[in-house]
Structures are given as C-alpha cells and as structure tokens.
C-alpha cells in the first residue's frame, strides 16, 4: 500500500509522503493533493480487490465449483450491459456514474444471477460454467450492438470504463461506495463462515446447521450481486481476481474453514489489486487493468484445472 502511495510520476520525497499521510501539511501543496489522490486510489484498490476475491470465494462454495467466479458466470457482464445502456441512453448525466448507471448495472447483475440460480437446479458443474460464459458472450455482443448506434463520446466513455481501473475516486459517490462495500465485507466475514462451511456439504447440511435453504440462498445471491455490481460499476469489469485469488487462498491454507478463507481471500485480493495498480501507474503508457490481472490470473486457472480433479472435484 505504501509503495503505491509513495511511488508515481511525480517524484515526492518519502519523508514528505509520510508526513502528509500523518496529517501534517508539507510546504508543497500540490503534493498533498497528489498523495490524497493516490491514497484514495489505493484504498479503492484494497477494498474493491478484496471484495471481488471474497465474492469469488462465496460463488465457488455456493455453486460448489472451483472454476466459478463473478466474471466466468457472466455476472459482471450483466452489470456491463446495464452500464452500457445507461451510458448510451442517458447523455444528460454528468460525472462518472450517475444513479441510472447504478440502477441498471445492479439490475443487469441480478438478472444474470437469477438465471444462474434457476439453472443451477438442473445443470451442475462445467455445464453451468459454459452457460455463464455464453451469457457473457451474449452480453458483450449486445453491448457491441448498442455501441454501434451510439456516438463517439459515449462509446469512448464506455470503453474507458470497460478497461477497468481503480482511479475513479473523484466522484461524489466514492465515499458512499466505500462505506457500503466495507459494510458488505463485514457482513460476509461475520455472518458467512458457518453458512458456507455448511454449504460445501450440500443442502441437507445447510438445514442441519439451522438455516433455511431458501432464505440463505437468497441472502448469498443478494450479497454476491451487490458486491460484484458495486465493484464493477465503480472500477469496471475486473477479471480474474474473483476467480483466481480464492484458489490461491484454498491452496495456501490447509483448512477449509471459511473464516480463514474469507480473510485470506480478502488479503490476497487486496494485495494483487494494489500490485496491479502499481504496475499500471508506473507502466508509462495506458494499460487496461484487465491486461495485468489476466497476466497472473490465467496461469493460476490453468494450474487449477490441471491439478483439479482430485481434491476439488471437477465434474
């Protein structure tokens, strides 16, 4: 985190960085502006990345599938369609993301989640993943159609959003976004460990642990939908953090206890998000965030598939 704050295009002495962080005002006022910007950006990366990894872990345990994730199942694509609609339709909107973007983005993510939930009764495992991928493709071609009928400025705005970035911290809704996201993460950490521990044994164990199956299923869906939609709306569709980090957490920790896995996933997600952001900011040219997350994410997924069948029950 500190590296990300102190390192950047504008060279600022480490001493000043530290003093600004501690609340003291340095002699150069523009520096404190830069630091503030970087600090918020890092905060954004930590919580967005961590939340994505947590949502990935929950999705995997919920669908009992090691290759499930917010990106693979098309949930973030659903949000993308909503955002595309909003950006392309609502030119009256000012600022980065307005209310209609949020509303339509949420709707998109939840519609996909509902479809997946209904399908999950009949199809399992890889079949569901393939359907999720198809939903992704369907959504992205739908977006292409929308882009076709829109003007250049709108298209540019959407494409920029689609690259994914933690830099959008200047809009008014940023603080409320962070607050809601932190609350959601807290709910996950406090309420979900036992529920997910039960969920990996199947529905009988869920009701044996004292939960209503319908109620907890709805709760999980709503929480996942909220997290993925929020992060996708704020930072763009970020790939691979949600699917790869939980795998690393499962590998690193010898336990299957979800309290450990949730915390581990959060830390891992935050770490990779900040790391990607450091690379992104220091690359010198405009790189999409997704290019970096895919660089480390894709090999992890391949590795999971290769060693998968034994311990993770690929179907």
């Amino acid at each position, binding site marked *: 985190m500190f590296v990300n704050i102190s390192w950047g295009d504008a060279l600022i002495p480490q001493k000043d960085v530290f003093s600004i962080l501690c609340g003291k005002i340095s002699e150069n006022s523009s520096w404190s502006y830069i630091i503030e910007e970087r600090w918020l950006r890092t905060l954004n990366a930590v919580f967005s990345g961590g939340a994505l990894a947590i949502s990935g872990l929950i999705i995997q345990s919920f669908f009992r599938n090691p290759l499930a994730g917010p990106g693979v199942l098309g949930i973030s694509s659903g949000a993308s369609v909503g955002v595309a609609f909003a950006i392309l339709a609502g030119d009256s909107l000012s600022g980065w993301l307005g209310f209609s973007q949020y509303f339509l983005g949420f709707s998109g993510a939840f519609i996909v989640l509902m479809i997946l939930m209904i399908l999950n009764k009949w199809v399992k495992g890889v079949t569901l993943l393939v359907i999720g991928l198809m939903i992704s493709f369907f959504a992205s071609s739908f977006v292409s159609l929308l882009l076709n009928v829109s003007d250049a400025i709108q298209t540019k705005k959407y494409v920029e959003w689609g690259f994914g970035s933690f830099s959008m911290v200047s809009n008014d809704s940023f603080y409320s976004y962070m607050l809601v996201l932190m609350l959601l993460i807290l709910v996950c950490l406090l309420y979900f*460990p036992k529920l997910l521990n039960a969920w990996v044994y199947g529905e009988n164990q869920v*009701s044996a*642990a*004292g939960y209503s199956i319908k109620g907890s299923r709805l709760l999980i869906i709503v929480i996942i939908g909220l997290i993925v939609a929020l992060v996708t709306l704020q930072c763009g569709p970020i790939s691979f953090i949600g699917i790869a980090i939980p795998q690393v957490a499962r590998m690193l920790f010898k336990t299957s206890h979800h309290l450990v896995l949730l915390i581990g996933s959060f830390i891992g997600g935050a770490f990779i998000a900040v790391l990607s952001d450091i690379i992104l900011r220091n690359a010198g040219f405009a790189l999409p965030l997704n290019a970096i997350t895919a660089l480390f994410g894709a090999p992890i997924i391949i590795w999971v598939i290769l060693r998968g069948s034994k311990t993770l029950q690929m179907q």
Partner: protein
Amino acid sequence: MIKLHNCNISIGEKRLFNCPDFTLEKGQMIALLGKNGSGKSTFLRALCGFNKSLFGDCWIDEKPFIQLHQKEIQKKIAYVPVKQEVFGKIHLKDLVLSGNMSERNFMDLIRKEEVVKAEMILNQLNIGHLSENLFVQLSDGEQKLGLLAKALFQNADYLFLDEPEAFLDVGNRMKMFAELQKIAQEGKSVFFSTHQPDLAKKYCTHVAFIENQELKIIDATLYEEQLIHRIFLED
C-alpha cells in the same frame, strides 16, 4: 419416541406409501425394507426435515412434528446419507466436526474439547489415523465410517441411516452394526433402510417393510424368508 398415525409419504401428487401406524421407541433398532423407489430414503429424509414429503399426524418426543423447528429436529435426529458430496479441502476431522454445527455461532469457531471428542470417536471406529486425510481421497467404506462418526459426534437420541451396509467390507460391516447395536442398547433409537434382509434378522429388534404401498412393522423374531418374497417379488 417417534410416533406416526395416519400418515402418508408423497412427492407432489404422487403418493409413495401410507403409514397407518408406526412407532420408534428408545432402545429399538428397526430395519426398513422395500423395493427400489418405494420411498425408503424419502421417508428417512422427511423425518429429518430435509424434505416436505411427510403428511399426517407425527410426533417426536410428544411434540407435533409440524411445530418443530429444523434446529430442534437436528438435536434429536442424526442422519447418515448413502454418500456425501463435499467441496474443497474437507478433512475427515472437519466432516466429523460439522455434526455439531447447529450448536455454534455464525463464525463457526471450533472448541478444543470438540476436536478431542471427534478424535475419540474416530479412534473408537478404528479410523483415527485417517483424521487428517482429505475426505474425497478416502475409500467409499472409510467415508461411510466417517459419516457414522459424524452422526455419533452429533450425539442425538435418534440415529437414521440410509443403507448403512453399502460400500462396507465384511469386517467393517460387522463393526458398523455392532456399533449400531451398542447405540440402541444405550437407550437410543436406530432406524435404517437396507437392501440386506439378513441384517434385519440378525441385529434388529423390529423390521419395517413397505408392502403394497403400506408401511408395516413386525417383531424381528417373526421375520421369515417368506416375507422377502412378499416384499420384493410380488407386484
């Protein structure tokens, strides 16, 4: 005591069988016989509250079944499925410890005494050395004993098992049923479905069977070979 009166087991519109009278008392060990698809497993799971297929008057320890919360049922009835699917790095010990989940809070923190108790039960079933092994890497028979260990860990008054003999070798089968008999003699109730009529005669106090879509129950001493013919071969 579990008491059923004028009940039926139905899935949707389809009625699987009627159950005019059935009781399961303390110290009893009852085998449930019936053709494939006659509704044995559905019946067991219905009594555990895992499905809504049981209709009619049913009481568990004098309390009406429909008024019992799922959590209360879990304290009374431990259930052993034919097979258990798990996801993730579940060790045998984790599975056994999951038997007590309804007692813990949302964080599912496991106390040291629980671990000691789990290890003790595993040792008692001679699978203590496997406690740190991944559940999916155990053989089917070892998994079955592990599931029994989980049910014992739950320490409920009623123990329901779906085909407990499945996947077990002769030695482990004897061990399993000796254990079940011991549990029944300790004053608990054991109720299991099976496809092995000889087990019913050898170990049980009573035999329940589904004949012509009706659940009947007889004393195990009255059980005779003819019964097999009646249950399984006649339409």
